[in-house]
């Protein structure tokens, strides 16, 4: 009797697949032991192992005796991400339903912080091009600086980047590492006096009418200026309208909890399809991880510097420069970082509500940034 089938799989393992098992294990470790974005990194880590088992049944295979067989993870990827970008977009409905734009509507000046903190995306694109990446790959890498996993995934997939897996891992890992990255970046460009600057918080009532009109207005304006952003902004704002309209509380709860959880549950393991060893284990992956870090640092630095310049023109209504760094989209981690740094500089300094306002502005700005990047390529002849 031939027993070779017992070790056929073992003998087929390549060293690249071994590397992926280690990466998968590392992601699972970071998710469980360190609590880094566990809802995504854990499924991605496990999926990285699944798709890299020799002749894995979770991806399409062809064997002489059976012919072609279809794998579930490949099917999920092709239907849920590649064909329609449905998964990241549906997740946006849940995210929109979770966000309270009230603090931002009470202080609209902070919209500008969200806009400024997207500069890291475009500066990173330039660096990636200088390192030799193709323009579409460079744009996909730069969008890691949106600090928004679904946006990174959608843009890189739409542009058919060769590095979707590495970009997704970088985007989600660095979002989890915001409490480490941002204090370092902020301290590079601020003094203790800057960080101790107090901002009075005057809670202003935001009317229901304004809360309802806001998502509609944002969608229309973003759609008119950058039509390619409509899917991203529209689904985010649709979720927010469900939240704010006041007559769909059951749907709002479903979007915030059940829908977001279901999509998240499947998204991580689906992304792992792009973590096949032959696509992932290559020198560019390390460069992408480095560039993702650069994007987060540049976002934070430009956000701070922008507020410092803004303060020159509005001396009677100054903003703590750190609030500019909260303009990245990593919500709510970035707001917490700003509050913590403010209190370290002065225990009576409370910046949380201002940081939250800038942070939710960053959420809108990051999806608009994704849209304008796609728009740029749409307009290329």
């Amino acid at each position, binding site marked *: 009797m031939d027993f070779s089938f017992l070790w056929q799989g073992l003998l087929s393992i390549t060293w690249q697949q071994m590397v992926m098992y280690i990466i998968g294990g590392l992601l699972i470790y970071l998710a469980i032991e360190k609590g880094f974005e566990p809802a995504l990194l854990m499924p991605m880590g496990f999926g990285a192992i699944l798709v890299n088992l020799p002749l894995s049944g979770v991806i399409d295979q062809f064997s002489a005796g059976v012919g072609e067989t279809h794998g579930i993870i490949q099917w999920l990827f092709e239907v849920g991400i590649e064909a329609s970008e449905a998964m990241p977009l549906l997740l946006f409905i849940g995210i929109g339903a979770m966000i309270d734009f009230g603090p931002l509507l009470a202080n609209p000046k902070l919209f500008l912080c969200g806009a400024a903190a997207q500069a890291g995306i475009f500066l990173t694109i330039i660096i990636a091009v200088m390192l030799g990446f193709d323009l579409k790959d*460079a744009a996909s890498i730069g969008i890691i600086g949106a600090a928004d996993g679904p946006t990174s995934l959608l843009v890189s997939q739409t542009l058919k980047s060769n590095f979707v897996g590495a970009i997704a891992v970088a985007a989600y890992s660095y979002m989890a590492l915001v409490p480490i990255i941002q204090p370092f970046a902020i301290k590079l460009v601020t003094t203790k006096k800057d960080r101790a600057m107090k901002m009075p918080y005057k809670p202003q009532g935001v009317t229901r009418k304004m809360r309802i009109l806001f998502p509609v207005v944002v969608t229309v*304006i973003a759609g008119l200026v950058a039509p390619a952003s409509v899917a991203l902004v529209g689904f985010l704002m649709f979720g927010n309208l469900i939240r704010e309209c006041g007559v769909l509380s059951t749907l709002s709860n479903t979007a915030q909890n059940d829908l977001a959880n279901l999509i998240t549950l499947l998204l991580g393991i689906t992304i792992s399809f792009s973590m096949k060893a032959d696509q992932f284990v290559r020198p560019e992956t390390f460069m992408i991880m480095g560039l993702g870090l650069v994007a987060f640092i540049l976002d934070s630095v430009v956000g701070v510097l922008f507020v410092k310049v803004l303060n020159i023109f509005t001396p009677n209504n100054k903003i703590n420069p750190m609030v500019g760094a909260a303009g990245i989209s990593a919500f709510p981690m970035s707001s917490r970082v700003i509050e913590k740094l403010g209190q370290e500089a002065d225990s009576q300094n409370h910046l949380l509500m201002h940081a939250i306002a800038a942070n939710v502005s960053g959420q809108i700005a990051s999806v608009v940034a994704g849209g304008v990047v796609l728009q740029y390529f749409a307009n290329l002849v």
Partner: protein
Amino acid sequence: MSENLIRALEMLGQGMLGIFVVLGIIALLVVLMQKLDGKK
């Protein structure tokens, strides 16, 4: 300068302009809505 670098710089200009225009208009409309609400 390579063509890709020129395009990346162009993307920086167009991208940041687009983001500031979108968020700037939204901010102005929010201020306007606040003022209109305040008058009532």
